[in-house]
């Protein structure tokens, strides 16, 4: 039996809800076979502003959750993703034009990435923090703390893994995130939003925008409330541009080598050192 194709018009993911773009715009994406695939929302700077408000208000709650709890929630994302892996495989095949086998490998790797970073949540302060020796009757501790709101430009290919690789470490550290999906390969990031919405991640901790990178980039760079940017999906010229406009609030702008590394978590954290008298 043949059924009618339901062409999808996707929405954004802001503050735990799925709103349309404030601008009402969408854009068309085509698959690897040059055929129409879907209409994602074309986010405007006001959608970005709303996402930052949501991310900012959710961040302290996320950072103050116990590291163990954060780890559990990241693990939960992996669980839910596994249940929807077929959908991810389909989307990756249609978008990237890769074989089903290659797409499956990518999905498995993305799920493993969540599990890997979920394990880091409650171990990070032991590995990266320290008890420092001081010449006085004091304890002196150094511990890593979340930076705040981080914007992420996901890589285009691999589309799912690219999004997860930037997102997971930022969440593990207790930051809230605004993920800018790749302009040409956004579908897996959109579905990732649907996964996150049902994974006990508090609303606003993850926000996902689809649209034109070039349109959002200057506003992300100059937004004083955004504390860091992962420029994985930007080219060198765009990276220079965002560094220029992001200088005003000392935004931390980073690009990472591929692969999972605790340094990716720590890059968006600050180390706090506290003194405490011995015996009290």
């Amino acid at each position, binding site marked *: 039996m043949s059924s009618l194709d339901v062409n999808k018009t996707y929405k954004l993911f802001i503050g735990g809800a799925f709103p349309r773009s404030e601008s009402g715009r969408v854009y068309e994406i085509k698959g690897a076979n040059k055929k129409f695939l879907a209409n994602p929302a074309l986010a405007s700077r006001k959608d970005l502003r709303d996402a*930052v408000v949501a991310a*900012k208000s959710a961040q302290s709650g996320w950072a103050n959750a116990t590291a163990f709890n954060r780890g559990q929630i990241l693990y939960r994302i992996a669980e839910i993703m596994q249940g929807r892996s077929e959908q991810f495989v389909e989307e990756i095949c249609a978008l990237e034009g890769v074989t089903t086998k290659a797409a499956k490998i990518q999905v498995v790797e993305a799920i493993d990435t969540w599990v890997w970073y979920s394990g880091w949540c409650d171990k990070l302060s032991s590995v990266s923090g320290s008890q420092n020796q001081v010449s006085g009757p004091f304890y002196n501790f150094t511990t890593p703390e979340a930076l705040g709101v981080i914007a992420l430009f996901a890589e285009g290919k691999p589309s799912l893994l690219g999004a997860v690789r930037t997102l997971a470490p930022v969440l593990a550290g207790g930051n809230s995130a605004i993920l800018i999906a790749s302009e040409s390969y956004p579908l897996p990031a959109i579905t990732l939003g649907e996964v996150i919405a049902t994974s006990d991640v508090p609303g606003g901790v993850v926000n996902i925008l689809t649209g034109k990178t070039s349109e959002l980039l200057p*506003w992300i760079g100059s*937004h*004083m*409330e955004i504390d860091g940017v992962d420029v994985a999906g930007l080219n060198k010229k765009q990276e220079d541009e965002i560094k220029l406009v992001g200088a*005003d609030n000392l935004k931390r702008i980073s690009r990472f080598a591929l692969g999972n590394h605790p340094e990716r978590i720590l890059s968006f954290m600050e180390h706090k050192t506290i003194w405490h008298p011995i015996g009290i």
Partner: protein
Amino acid sequence: MIIDGSEKSLRKFLSDLPPVDQVGAEARAAMLATRSIKTSSKAWAIDMAISMVDLTTLEGADTPGKVKSLCAKAVRPDPSDLTVPSVGAICVYNDMVKIARSELDRIGGKSLPVAAVATAFPSGRASLAVKKIDTQDAVDAGANEVDMVIDRGAFLSGRSYDVFEEIRVIKEICGEKAHLKVILETGELVTYDNVRKASFLAMLAGADFIKTSTGKVAPAATAPVVLVMLEAVRDYFTLTGEKIGVKPAGGIRTTKDAIKQLVLVKETAGEQWLTPDLFRIGASALLNDLLMQRMKLRSGHYASANYVTVD
């Protein structure tokens, strides 16, 4: 005079008031809220809204230190930008009036009024004798404005003349020294008809301002309620030639909310009401958002809450 001050004439006046078209009022308020205010109009609206803010702290945990820092913020909301106007007034509990007054005088805010909430705020559940003492205390402490609450229980059980008398007595105590704002607590009045009746009742009894809410009850200053009150003020002006102010309070947290209120004022009561003498916004968190939007307009990029004070 449109009534002769007797219970009979008040009752007749209130029962002759036409009912509010609920659907119409809500639709009109919603339609006005969609108006887009941009660039230079927005800059004007933000400065106007700042000058209309009654910067408020009404917590059990208020301290002299907190009130003093609020005073500093009232006089100069953004210390890094001298073009930002001062706010409309400071609004505190009775016992903080003296502290606020002397601090404002000390730091160059002599012209800034101090408003005190009186008459057993926020519930209004006390005897008239206590309410009178409460008000006298506020006036003696140097309050320039008194925000009184009406007895909603009396109003809802039909004893509107008691409410009328109470407002009149409090107004007498305020005399020339203090402006009287009458808080209707619209969230407890149930219907728009009641809001209209209470508005007229307060104005007839001598209110200089009618105020939506205490901020302790939700819903507070919803757009249709403010619309109904602005209409009442406009109609009262047509009847008597007297201009009464309106103060929405509670739930107005963002610049967008504040600008929506200004649009309501302009389209309902008219441009003459767009002054801090006739329109105030009772708020605490709103001021920071107004300042951040002002920064955004000046610098061209979105501002951060890290650059405004934590109140």
